[in-house]
């Protein structure tokens, strides 16, 4: 069971997040201020942390920076009412951590925590396989069973990302950030349109659907029998 440390000063928000994570089978520890949170992070050795940016005692980013100085590499999801234009946040993202702007949907938070916990290992594999679906990264070709799938480069990129994170909920914002390098959510439902194209190609007529739309949340790629 994955241990998550939540450092958030607003009790009600913390309560909701704790309840949701507990429902999903996480073990959650909660701390309401920066200094206490830092101490708990050192003691409990959590698998992932959720840190609010504005905290009494010590601000969230400083907490993370002091942990990093001690070589604690726990992945962190930073929550903030402030946007992500500034440099320290860019630093975070480069370091493999994540950032979520308030207000957010709870599914978004859970999806991101799971993504942080299940970061795909750095493999040298040139062949990705999920169920019948196969992707050759050198030849840039895709196959479902014996059927060849013709993909545009952008569709290939999207499918590759999803295959590396199969069985995980991928939200629209995550896909935008990771696949298209968009740090904002555009007005038009871009992701759905792209996903629609890819799904149309992957799940042919008569195939069991591999790409599932989770209503109001995002998409999951699953192996089907």
């Amino acid at each position: 069971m994955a241990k998550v440390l939540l450092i958030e000063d607003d009790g009600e928000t913390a309560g909701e997040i704790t309840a949701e994570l507990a429902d999903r089978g996480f073990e959650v520890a909660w701390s309401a201020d920066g200094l206490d949170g830092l101490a708990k992070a050192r003691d409990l050795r959590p698998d992932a942390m959720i840190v609010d940016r504005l905290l009494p005692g010590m601000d969230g980013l400083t907490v993370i920076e002091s942990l990093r100085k001690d070589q604690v590499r726990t992945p962190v999801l930073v929550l903030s009412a402030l946007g992500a234009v500034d440099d320290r946040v860019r630093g975070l993202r480069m370091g493999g951590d994540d950032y979520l702007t308030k207000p957010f949907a709870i599914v978004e938070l859970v999806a991101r925590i799971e993504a942080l916990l299940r970061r795909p290992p750095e493999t040298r594999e040139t062949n990705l396989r999920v169920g019948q679906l196969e992707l050759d990264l050198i030849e840039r070709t895709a196959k479902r069973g014996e059927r060849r799938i013709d993909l545009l480069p952008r569709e290939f990129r999207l499918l590759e990302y999803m295959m590396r994170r199969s069985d995980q909920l991928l939200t629209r914002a995550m896909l935008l950030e990771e696949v298209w390098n968009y740090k904002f959510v555009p007005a038009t439902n871009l992701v759905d349109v792209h996903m629609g194209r890819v799904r149309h190609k992957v799940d042919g007529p008569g195939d069991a659907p591999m790409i599932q739309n989770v209503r109001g949340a995002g998409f999951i790629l699953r192996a089907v029998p």
Partner: protein
Amino acid sequence: MQFIRSKTFHWTTVLAGLFAIFVTVLFGFIYFRIDNYLIARSDRMITTQIGFFAGLPRERLIGALNDHLGQDSRGVQFSGVFDAKGNRLAGNVAALPDGLDIGAPARSMPLVRLDDKEAGATSVRTVARRLENGDILVVGRNVDETAEVFRVVGAALAIGLLPAFCLWLLAGAWLSARAHRRVEEVNLRVQRIIAGDLRERLPHKNVDEPFSRLAAIVNRMLDELETMINALAGVGNDIAHDLRTPLTRARLTLERGRTNATTLEQLQEVVDKAIAGIDQSLSIVTALLRLAEIENSRRSSAFGDVALGDMLREVCDMYEPIAEDKQIALSVNIADKFSVRGDRDLLLEAVANLVDNAIKFTPRSGRVELALLRGEGETILRVTDTGPGISAHEHDAVLRRFYRSDKIRNTPGIGLGLNLVSAIVKLHGFRLIIHAGPGGRVEIVCPDEEGGRT
């Protein structure tokens, strides 16, 4: 009398003083040159005279001396003959002066006139010769022209310099009083602005003068501030209105659902609708916060070289499927590789917003074109479409928060897109140009950086 303490007046006084010193020195120099010239001339004269007298035979010498003195109406000539012991034999010099150097060139000696003993010794240019019989001949000349010259030069100095100096002081006083008056005037207007009258401007004339230019600069700043403050004032109402609409809808849905829903499915449907309404309100808040954040940030150290061509292709790649669905031809036209200094993520967002708008407002089977071209010392990023465009009278309005043209009331969106683009463009020091319709044409103009980067 306040001007006496002003810096302008101090400087004028110092300058006037320096000028006076310079003029005085100049006049002094002229005086001394003339003085020297007169003395040299008079010295030559008495040397010639003494040579002439010394050459005369004894009996004619006395007569010639007396004639010579008799013709001197101004009383400047001195001459006399003394025996070896120094007793006066003839002439108008009372006694041999002490330290007389016989046979030496002319120099100034104190001589006393026989006919004017009370006046005492006058300093006179004098030469002396010993005659053949041992007597001493003295000839002198009082160079009184030098005093005359001194008087004339002094008078010229007084007539010229004093009024000039006074004029200078007056000018200083006037200039500083004028500066003071203008500062007072500016202060008065600024006080009015502080009191809340944002339409007030500083007085300025269209002349190339530091004060006027400063006033013009401040006025430009005030224009910008006024627009911003007016925009802000309007925003409060707009936000309230735009938030209330989806929230009211959500509330109605929930209320009706609570009364009417009988099954779990019906209730879930109601809740989903309510969440959608709340999400829309939240997206407005998020967009506003983001806008504020961009507007308040400064050029950051994260600015790097952004290859605009690649960026345009990325945006095009992103929007191609959507354009296809609407049967809109989306094309990219890149003249050459251009890069600018900026924040890639923000610039991408700006361009994506423009393309998003263009595709949204272009009817089916239309055209949207992205172009990157070079202007005079600037790189231009242009988005054109075959949509309705933005008419001239909507020009300023589209940059207002929440503005949505009547023509597009039923198109989804929250009306902050162009604000965001405008804020991003401003942050980079670029310009956003919206051309009047028909047909949409929006340009982001990126001037080259100092140092000739392209």
